[in-house]
C-alpha cells in the first residue's frame, strides 16, 4: 500500500474508533465591524495601530500622492538617494519622479535598491495590517521585501474593520502578504526589535477619498 493510501486508511480507522462525528461550526464572532470601508474612525484606528508597530503614516488627498511619496523618499533616503522601484502597475499619479518600474530583475539586484513603492489590496484597521496581493499594483512579493525602505499607498476605501472583511475581499489563489509594520523580532528576551530581514522602515501613505 502506498503511504498515501495507508495514511488515509489510518485516518478512517481512527475516526471510526473514536466515533468522530462532524458538528456545525458556530460563527458567533464579529464578522463585520459595522462601519463601512473607509469610515473616518477606521482610518484613525489603522493609523493608531500602524504607529504602534512603529510604521510611519502620512495622510494626503488623492491629488497629492506622488508628492507625498516623493517627500517620504527624500526624507528616508536623502537627496542622493539610491534607486527607487515602483510596482509595475502603480498608477502614474502615485509614482514619484525618478522612480523606476520593477523589471523583474534578479533578487541580488533588487536587494541593492533603496526603496520600493507599492499599492495595497486591502487594509485591516483593527490589526494595523496591509495586504499585498502580488498583482500589478502591489508588485511581486520580493519587491516589498528586499529594499530596506517600503512605501505602501493605501486608498481610504480599501480600509476595512476586521480580518473577516479583509479575507472575503481577497483572492486566495494569489500569493498574499499580510504586512503589519516593519519586520520585527521578539526573540531576544521577548523584547520587540523592529527591522530584521524584511524592510526596516515601513511608510504608509493613506489617501483620502476623492
Amino acid at each position: 500500500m502506498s503511504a498515501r493510501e495507508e495514511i488515509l486508511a489510518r485516518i478512517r480507522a481512527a475516526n471510526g474508533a473514536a466515533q468522530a462525528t462532524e458538528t456545525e461550526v458556530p460563527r458567533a464572532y464579529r464578522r463585520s465591524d459595522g462601519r463601512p470601508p473607509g469610515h473616518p474612525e477606521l482610518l484613525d484606528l489603522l493609523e493608531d495601530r500602524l504607529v504602534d508597530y512603529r510604521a510611519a503614516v502620512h495622510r494626503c488627498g488623492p491629488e497629492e500622492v506622488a508628492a507625498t511619496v516623493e517627500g517620504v523618499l527624500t526624507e528616508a533616503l536623502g537627496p542622493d538617494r539610491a534607486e527607487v522601484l515602483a510596482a509595475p502597475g502603480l498608477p502614474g499619479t502615485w509614482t514619484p519622479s525618478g522612480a523606476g518600474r520593477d523589471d523583474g530583475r534578479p533578487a541580488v539586484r533588487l536587494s541593492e535598491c533603496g526603496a520600493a513603492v507599492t499599492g495595497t489590496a486591502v487594509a485591516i484597521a483593527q490589526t494595523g495590517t496591509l495586504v499585498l496581493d502580488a498583482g500589478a499594483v502591489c508588485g511581486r512579493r520580493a519587491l516589498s521585501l528586499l529594499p530596506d525602505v517600503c512605501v505602501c499607498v493605501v486608498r481610504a476605501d480599501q480600509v476595512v474593520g476586521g480580518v473577516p472583511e479583509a479575507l472575503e475581499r481577497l483572492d486566495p489563489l494569489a500569493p498574499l502578504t499580510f504586512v503589519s509594520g516593519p519586520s520585527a523580532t521578539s526573540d531576544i528576551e521577548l523584547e520587540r526589535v523592529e527591522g530584521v530581514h524584511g524592510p526596516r522602515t515601513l511608510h504608509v501613505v493613506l489617501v483620502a477619498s476623492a
Partner: protein
Amino acid sequence: MSRTFLGMPGIPHGTGNLGGEEPFPRSAARHLADHQMRANLANATGTIRAKRASVVSELPDWEELRESGRAVKEATMARLDEHLVELERRVTERGGTVHWARDAAEANRIVTDLVRATGAEEVVKVKSMATQEIGLNEALEEAGVTAWETDLAELIVQLGDDRPSHILVPAIHRNRTEIRRIFLETMPGVDPDLTDDPRQLAMAARAYLRERFLRAKVAISGANFAVAETGTLAVVESEGNGRMCLTLPDTLITVMGIEKTVPTWRDLEVFLQTLPRSSTGERMNPYTSTWTGVTPGDGPGEFHLVLLDNGRTAALADPTGRQALHCIRCSACLNVCPVYERTGGHAYGSVYPGPIGAVLSPQLTGVEANPSLPYASTLCGACYEVCPVAIDIPSILVDLRGRQVESDRRPSAERIAFGAVARVMSPPRLWRSAQRLTRLGRLLARGRATLPAALPPPLSKWTRTRDLPTPPSETFTRRWARDHGDRT
C-alpha cells in the same frame, strides 16, 4: 474510567525528537538548578503573559473566536481524509507536488531526495516544529546538505549548538549577554564591538543571513495552516526570514503535519485573529504569507508539499486525546504554566515542551514511550484557560496518567496502598470506623492547620511533597447526619 485506550492496533506511533532518555522528574530537578535559565524564563514569560492578556482583552468576541476555532478543528478532524485529498488535488492543480510520509524516517528520505535532485548543497530553513520533530537537519547533514536556520532564535540555538526550549521563542532560555557571546564566538565576520543591545544583535543576524538568502536555491518551511478547498498554505512569522525563504529560492519544500489542515479559506479569519494575540501578544504578527501551488513569475518555480503522519493518526484514534491535534502552536500554554516557567523546555525532552507537549508528545509516541510527561503538570488549568482553540489539556493529562498506570501492571507500593484504601472506603461501616481513627491526627497536629510533614519511609515519599491537612473535628457525613437526620 470505563475503558482503557492503549492505541489502535495497526496504527503505529511516531518517532523522532519527541521524548528524552531521562524521566521528567529527574531532568526537571537538574534544570531547576540552572538559576540563570530560571531568571531568563521568569522574565520572558512574565512579559509575554502581560502582553497577551492586554491584546486579548481588546476583543469583545474572544470567547466566540475561541469556540469557533475549536469547532473548526474538530470538524476538520472528523473528515480529515477528505480534506487531505482535496488539499492534494488543489495543490497539484496549481503546479505543486504532494508527498505523503508515514513517519519521520520516510519524511526525511523524501526531503533529502528532493534536495539532492536539485544538486544543492545547502538549504535555508524557516522555523518549523514538524522538521524539528523528525530531525530533518540531522538527516540532511548525513546526506551532505547544510541546513541554515534563519529564524533569529533558531539561529541562536544552532550557533550555540543547543536545543530549542520553547515552541515560539526557541532561545527563550538565553539572555542577551549569552546571545552576544554566542555570536562573537561563532558568527564569521561579526563586529568585535558588538554590544548586547537586542537591536544590534538582530542587525548582526540580518547581515549574516542576507547573503545566504540571496544565494539559496532551496528552502524548507513548515506551515501554520493549509486550506483544503483552495490548496493555500500559510506561514505566520515576524522577521521576514519566512518571506525570504518562501519567495527567493527556486525550489520550496514544505513539511506539514496532516493536522494543520483547515477546510475553508474563511476558517483563517478565526485563526489569524487568535494566533498572533496568543503567541507574541501582538494584534497581528508582522508578516503572514499565503501561497497556492506555483505562481509563474513570482516565487519558487517548484513547490513540494510533504504531508506528515508520524503518530498523528494514532492520536486521532483516541477519543479524549485527539483534541491535542487541534493545537495551532501558539505557545500561550507554555507561558502561563507554573511548571514550564521553572523547569524550562529542555526538561521535557521533546521538541514540544510545556503543557501541550506533555499531552502531544506521549500521544504521538504512545504513552509507554513517554511515561513521565503526563505528570509534568500541577493540573492547575491555566493552560486550558488561555488555549485559543480550547484544548482541555488537564483532562487529557488525567486520561494519559490513567493509561500510563494501566499500561504498567507491575506491583508498586502506591498500588498496594491505594488497593488497601479502596477496600477500607468501600463498606460504609469500615469507612466510618476509619474516619473515627483520623481524630488521632488532631492530637498530632496540636492545633496547627497541617499535620507534621514527615511520615516514616517509605510513606515519606508521599508526604515529602504533600501537606496533610489536619482532620476536622467533625466529618462531613456526621455533620450531614446531624443536620438532616441519618439517612446513610
